């Protein structure tokens, strides 16, 4: 098992290296000069030149073949990509071009917001999706089944940015129950411990702040949870139906075991494996879906930040944010693979 983990981690290196190349190249290819974006359209030629030099934008992208011609090996390797990679290895993600704040610092502030949103949405999706799936499978071909499966199909087909707008219309504009966006009322101060507001406010016992954070979470969580909820419910139902046809279920029933026991002890355990795969894949997608949700609800997470940075040509921010998202995505997939071995003793990793 340990050997398998190590091997998987090593095999991640080329993928992640490829990710850095793609992020790096894609950004460099986007038309527009960050130095101009930083100084404005009317900046003087010298100033632009100075800033470009400061940011290292005057260096070649990968390797400097002119320097090589002169036999300057150090200059040969002194390129934008290798500089970026070298700093990355040291944990330095650079500073935001527009706001001059270190990317790592802002990332550590914004990442918990996205994590809180994604985890809350995932919790809702799992806690509702799995029971709905079990119920549909147990009451197969009844109105409960049809209703929840039609609901799930509508959920899968839902454009979440539109769902978010509809929520704002209903809960914030018409009913005026929930705040329209943001993460916390500006007047409230919370001592930062984990960065997850729900936990921080609970630990410090700030109940009004906790309640306010919950109210801010409701709408984005509904928007974000809809698609994984629907997918998890469908997957649970399909997987349960398959397992319920197995011989050992018939044996368990023949023994006279209670239906509930058969469903939860015998069927559910075996049906969960594909559901866990889906949960893992969806967790990655949640981080991605957060871009739209965060934009609509002005949620101060990484999704909106990276989106703004792409539009504003803030290279270091896009690189840092995208790399983090990709890293989390890849690690979640690894965790899913590893959880197989724990859940299904038949699977052994060499």
């Amino acid at each position, binding site marked *: 098992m340990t050997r398998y983990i190590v091997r998987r981690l090593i095999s991640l290196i*080329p*993928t*992640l290296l*490829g*990710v850095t190349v*793609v992020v790096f190249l*894609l*950004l460099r*290819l*986007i*038309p527009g000069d960050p130095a101009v974006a930083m100084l404005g359209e009317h900046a003087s030629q010298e100033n632009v030149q100075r800033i470009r030099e400061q940011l290292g934008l005057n260096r070649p992208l990968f*390797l400097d*073949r002119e320097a*090589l*011609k*002169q*036999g300057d*090996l150090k200059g*040969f390797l002194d390129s934008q990509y290798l500089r970026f990679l070298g700093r990355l290895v040291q944990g330095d993600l650079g500073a935001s071009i527009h706001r001059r704040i270190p990317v790592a610092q802002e990332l550590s502030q914004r990442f918990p917001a996205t994590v809180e949103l994604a985890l809350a949405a995932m919790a809702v999706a799992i806690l509702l999706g799995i029971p709905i799936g079990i119920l549909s499978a147990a009451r197969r071909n009844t109105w409960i089944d049809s209703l929840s499966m*039609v609901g799930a*199909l*509508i959920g*899968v*087909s*839902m*454009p979440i*940015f*539109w769902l978010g*707008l*509809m929520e*704002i*219309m209903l809960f914030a*504009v018409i009913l005026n129950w929930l705040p*329209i966006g943001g993460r916390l009322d500006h007047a409230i101060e919370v001592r930062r411990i984990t960065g997850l507001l729900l936990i921080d406010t609970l630990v410090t016992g700030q109940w009004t702040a906790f309640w306010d954070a919950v109210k801010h979470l409701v709408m984005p969580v509904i928007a974000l949870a809809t698609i994984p909820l629907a997918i998890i419910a469908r997957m649970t139902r399909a997987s349960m*139906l*398959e397992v319920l*046809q197995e011989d050992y279920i018939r044996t368990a029933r023949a023994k006279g075991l209670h239906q509930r026991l058969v469903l939860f002890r015998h069927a559910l355990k075996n049906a969960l494996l594909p559901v866990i795969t889906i949960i893992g894949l969806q967790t*990655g*997608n949640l*981080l*991605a*879906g957060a*871009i*739209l949700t965060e*934009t609509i609800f002005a949620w101060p997470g990484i999704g909106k930040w*990276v*989106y703004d940075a*792409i*539009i504003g040509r803030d290279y270091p921010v*896009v690189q840092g944010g*995208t790399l983090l*998202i*990709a890293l989390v*995505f*890849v690690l979640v997939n690894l965790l899913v693979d590893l959880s197989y071995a724990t859940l299904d003793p038949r699977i052994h990793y060499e």
Partner: protein
Amino acid sequence: MVEAPRRPDLPEFALRRRRTLWGDAWRRLIASPTARLGMAIVVIFILTTVLAHFFWPYNPKTDLDYTLKLKPPNLRPTAEIPSIHPFGTDKLGRDIFRRVIHGGWNSLRVGIISVGIALVVGGLLGLLAGFYESIPMTPGERRGLTAGVGLLLGFIPAWLADQPILAVLFAIVGSVGAGLSLSRLGHWRWLLFAGSGALVGGVPALWVSPYTAIVCGLLGAIIGVFIAFPLSGSLFSNLVMRLMDIILAFPSILLAIAIVAFLGPGLDRAMIAIGFVGIPTYARLMRATVLSLVQRDYVLAAQAVGSGHARILFRHILPNTLSPIIVQSTLGLGSAIIWAGALGFLGLGAIPPEPEWGAMLGDSYRFLASGAWWAVTFPGIAIMLSVLGFNLLGDGLRDALDPRLTR
């Protein structure tokens, strides 16, 4: 009128209609109420948009009437609003119903073209990856692959020395090397390849500068060693699938946004971005399908009678990958419509005043607070319904085309 001749002496089963694979699938498809609903939605969607596009001309550039700005839906003309607007009007006084109908044309276009891009590129990559992973390459194919690898890797020294001919030289080294039977050389072949690589890389670079020649020679030696490995189909498959992993490591919407930012806004560019992001899905599906198909007896039989690889691939394997591909493409049409809407909503898809559902939402959501619910509700319902239609149809097709899954 000529009467059909009767054949009373034939037994009943001979007169029965011939059963075909597609005929059976069709009967299973229309037997399912949800699939019928999906089909109905899809047919209505396609019919209205295509008919509207050709017979109900609409010019978004001239459509503008400030006197009708943000009027709620009305089904009967009144003194204030003399015209009928079943879905209301938007911030420029444009009829939302009309724009929703015409927006369908754009959604349909995005769906078909982006799925087409993803399907052709991803499908072809997956097909080749799955095939050569399980079936050994012919000597000719191996020479082609090695030459390709040589060409690809040769670009690095070629760029360094600014001499494109270098890459071609490496391709030739690769194809000649793969063609020779070098097994009797033993370990000497590594040296041979490294040496020839160093020569091919280093000598032409001498014209540039001695330093460049040293670096290119070193790189050439490394490439030579790499080419000396007995390259096989699994290397190709690995290469393709790792590339797909890299694309998949990005959240698709992020990648799509970055590509559109690179290409510039516009619906055509959005189609390319959405199609590109979808490539790995089809590549993986195709590879998995092909991997299971090459184990079948009929593929073995085709190999046994000496069919060429191209014939096996396109006559025996490709037709059998159709059903999962049809299902995935139908579902893909739905998600492409959502992606296009998302990009449009963020202002990266269709350029206004072009009618597109996502862009219409992005245009009007600022008026939600002032109570203009209709401007946001109807384009969204259009997205949801059309996606639902494709999803229902796709689900139905999956059950119909693969009866083993039906429960």
